[in-house]
């Protein structure tokens, strides 16, 4: 089963991590997270593709020079489907006042629509590349630890970490059950009603096995002190630093918002 690369879930984000030791890996996780905000806001400055395009070019060059080409690839994989959809919606599907630049039968392409799609895609790309850069270079556990240090609840941190692990597990379980059904003679191709029947046959055991898994995991977590009150520690020591820089980055978003509105 293919990964659902278009969905932005904590699971997908936590699963982005790549082992490495680049300068970006060494930046405090919350600094990287804080930088996402001003970068994204800056992408909205101006009413054309110019500003987000400049940010993108600088970002891509920096990543390539830093041997983080994988971030560029991952970002591309994430934004390609969205970009395609944007171009279809704005360039082709949406009706515009102005004359189309090209048309084939009922399909016509409009310059205004293309520009809008390009700008929107570039702004989206700035956000995606910022998040991907941050999350590719921070181990999920280090990120969770940093968040807990700043007062985020450990249950929320758990949900973030578990999301990354459980998504592939669900997928695996689904495909195992599907395999089992197929080997029992179920048709996964066939006609539509047949495929629906297969889908239901698939969903029931998936649901049941997931529920049993959830119950067991809940009990297992409980026996490991999941709901325990009081201070927690982490086996990985994350130096709690960079507060001023992080606040400055977040604060920098404010003038950028003003700029984006006025420009």
């Amino acid at each position, binding site marked *: 089963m293919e990964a659902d690369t278009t969905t932005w879930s904590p699971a997908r984000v936590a699963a982005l991590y790549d082992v490495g030791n680049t300068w970006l890996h060494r930046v405090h996780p919350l600094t990287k997270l804080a930088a996402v905000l001003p970068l994204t806001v800056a992408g909205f400055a101006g009413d054309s593709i110019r500003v987000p395009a400049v940010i993108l070019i600088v970002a891509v060059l920096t990543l390539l020079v830093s041997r983080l080409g994988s971030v560029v690839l991952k970002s591309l994989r994430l934004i390609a489907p969205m970009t395609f959809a944007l171009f279809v919606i704005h360039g082709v599907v949406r009706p515009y006042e102005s004359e189309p630049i090209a048309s084939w039968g009922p399909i016509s392409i409009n310059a205004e629509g293309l520009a809008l799609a390009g700008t929107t895609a570039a702004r989206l790309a700035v956000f995606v590349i910022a998040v991907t850069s941050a999350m590719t270079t921070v*181990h*999920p*556990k280090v990120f*969770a630890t940093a968040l807990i240090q700043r007062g985020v609840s*450990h249950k929320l941190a*758990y949900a973030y*970490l*578990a999301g990354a*692990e*459980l998504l592939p*597990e669900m997928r695996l379980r689904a495909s195992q059950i599907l395999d089992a059904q197929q080997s029992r003679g179920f048709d996964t191709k066939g006609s539509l009603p047949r495929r629906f029947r297969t889908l239901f046959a698939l969903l029931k055991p998936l649901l049941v096995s997931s529920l*049993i*898994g959830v*119950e*067991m*995991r*809940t*009990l*297992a*977590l*409980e*026996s*490991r*002190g*999941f*709901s*325990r009150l*009081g*201070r*927690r*520690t*982490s*086996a*990985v*020591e994350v130096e709690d630093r960079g507060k001023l820089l992080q606040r400055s980055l977040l604060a920098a978003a404010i003038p950028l918002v003003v700029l984006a509105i006025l420009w």
Partner: protein
Amino acid sequence: MVSGARGPDSTGSRTAVFAGFQEFGVTYDTASTPSLTGLTLELHSDKLTLITGPSGSGKSTLVRVLAGFIPRLLHGKIEGSAEVLGNDVESAPPNSITDSIGMVFDNPFDQLTAATKTAFDETAYALENEGLHPAEIVDRVMGALESVGLADLAGHHPRRLSGGQSQRLAIACALAQQKPILVLDDPTSQLDPTGTAEVVSMVGKLRREHTTVVLVAQDLTHWLAIADRLVILDGGRVTADGSPASLLAEPGLLADQVMIPRYVAIWAELRSRGIELGDRAPLGTDQLLASLQASDGAGG
């Protein structure tokens, strides 16, 4: 106080009782009939108590009470009383029981936290929740992984371990928390023969080190040799309780409730044909062989 009480167990030796059930019953909130009913049982420290019985006889329910999960996390109507380590299961403060009882479930993977990327982090999770110092966490985790033979795999992803390794990891988690009692709910039922052998020898080692073990197993084959006591459940109550060798001496009487290991069945069959093999059932193939050789020697 049950935990302070002393009483003879079925093997005749005297050890502390750490858990006691009196006319105890549980009806899950989601069920209409009781899963345990009128159950009376005492469990002893420094023993391996083996619990068996047909599917649905209440084995898992019993160990969930023992582990402090019922009725606090899995709700149900309780009858009679149950005390674990001096705590009444209905009024025990949170964590008072779970902190002392390590639990290993049947499915090796569903019991993982799913929030860790290495066996090390998986084992460290509970210690982090306890707020231990990082240096102590490292010591305890490596010690625990060492004693279950997983130290070399500390950096491996928990999901990529084999079933047997994953069950040993679950045991390591309990060891790292220094829990004095280990409860295993059919820990080998979902393992292949290699994994089963790993877990059996691990539990054997823990017994030699005097860990208190309560073990549920539907297939007794590998466990009788290290069990101090066998408890048989059926229909939510105890139907037999005693030393494995004497309980299994009449395997025919238990055939509805217990999967009789092959070496016991062979022993019973030979005995019924008049071969003198003593009145204590063998607890392994080795013991069967030994008693066959002994009877051979006696016969001529």
